[in-house]
């Protein structure tokens, strides 16, 4: 059982983070990206060509993470590989003892720097989850046996703020029916959509069937907030948030404050099982945020020192 699966099964507060993309530099380059927050997280996501830009492959980065003693979550998107290649990545991951898999549709090729590329989408994310689940039960999609069956802990993503918002919990439920056991949500800069999503997830029982982890993204400038709002598919930044940073005497500190406020509010929403943290800079923002919110280190959480995030 992976550390992430164990933490979720035990009902502990779960913390994952997203590794900045890697293009070169060997294991050192991988290590320096997670070293600042190493002690806090249960696992780190190895991304798959984020925003349709080519980088070192998720399987290669996941293996590197594991060699460095950090548990990986290998992301797989449907944009760049047909079903044979996706199944090969899953079998390859399991071969190296990588269990945590996060299945995504993927941004379109037009969001990247090689928009002339052919998009694949041979499977959609739900079919990819079901395929991974079939493999976990010892069969490729063809029905051919895999013996022994690979150990996989399958997750997915969902975006509570993208239309049709009223359908997002239904879609998440499909993912859970297909085999997902954790859901890392898209980055949010406002709480409304998350609160509505979680209320429905709790009411329908979804929050008990899968561990739901809202994502918090730390940025440093109003410019990056505006860039995210305009260019990152599926993420909106409310104008009030951008104005607040622009008006601040110290915009970087203000961005950090906003991140802390969002993270603190998100972890208190009923049904939330943990957080997924993203920082676009190689600095200690994630560790500082954990310190500020009083989130115990992973070791402390495992030893039962987890403090409930609810103010009494």
């Amino acid at each position, binding site marked *: 059982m992976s550390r992430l699966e164990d933490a979720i099964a035990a009902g502990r507060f779960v913390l994952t983070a997203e590794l900045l993309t890697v293009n070169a530099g060997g294991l050192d380059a991988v290590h320096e990206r997670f070293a600042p927050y190493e002690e806090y997280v249960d696992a780190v996501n190895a991304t798959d060509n984020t925003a349709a830009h080519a980088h070192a492959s998720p399987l290669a980065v996941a293996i590197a993470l594991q060699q460095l003693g950090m548990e990986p979550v290998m992301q797989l998107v449907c944009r760049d590989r047909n079903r044979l290649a996706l199944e090969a990545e899953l079998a390859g991951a399991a071969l190296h003892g990588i269990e945590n898999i996060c299945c995504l549709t993927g941004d379109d090729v*037009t969001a990247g720097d090689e928009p002339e590329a052919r998009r694949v989408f*041979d499977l*959609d994310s739900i*079919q990819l989850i079901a395929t991974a689940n079939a493999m976990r039960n010892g*069969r490729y*999609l063809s029905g*051919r046996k895999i013996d022994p069956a690979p150990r996989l802990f399958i997750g997915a993503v969902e975006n509570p703020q993208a*239309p049709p918002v009223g359908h997002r919990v239904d879609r998440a439920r499909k993912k859970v029916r297909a085999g997902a056991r954790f859901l890392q949500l898209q980055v949010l800069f406002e709480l409304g959509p998350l609160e509505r999503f979680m209320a429905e997830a709790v009411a329908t029982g979804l929050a008990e069937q899968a561990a739901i982890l809202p994502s918090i993204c730390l940025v440093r400038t109003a410019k990056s907030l505006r860039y995210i709002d305009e260019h990152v598919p599926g993420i909106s930044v409310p104008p009030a948030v951008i104005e607040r940073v622009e008006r601040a005497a110290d915009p970087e500190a203000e961005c950090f404050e906003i991140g802390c406020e969002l993270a603190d509010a998100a972890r208190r929403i009923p049904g939330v099982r943990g957080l997924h943290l993203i920082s676009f800079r190689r600095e200690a923002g994630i560790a500082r945020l954990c310190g500020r919110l009083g989130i115990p280190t992973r070791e402390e959480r495992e030893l039962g020192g987890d403090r409930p995030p609810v103010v009494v």
Partner: protein
Amino acid sequence: MRPIAVLEAAVKKPVWGCQMCGQCVLHSTGMTCPMNCPKTLRNGPCGGVRPDGHCEVKPEMRCVWVKAVERAPKTPWAHEIDDIRQPVDNRLWGTSSWVNYFTKRDKVAPKGWRVEA
């Protein structure tokens, strides 16, 4: 293309923008063809839908799944929108989904596919 596929294309292309995938699910997706999604997603919208409900890839087009979710409740097959649809059989492109429906060829899933619709 066989005559029946030609007829099917002639009827369905102008009305639904049929792509002739040969495994039609139109009735279960609010009479909105998911193969018009640039990512050909058959199980729901991606996370990139714009705040105005338009497509991430084609900003001028409303997301087919925004339309599907809107229209499905008005059809007799409303609940089928929550079905999990099996992967596309790429051998069926250009064939008649009418024929494949009656021969049940369009229901043939990969042997390892174990999801209840």
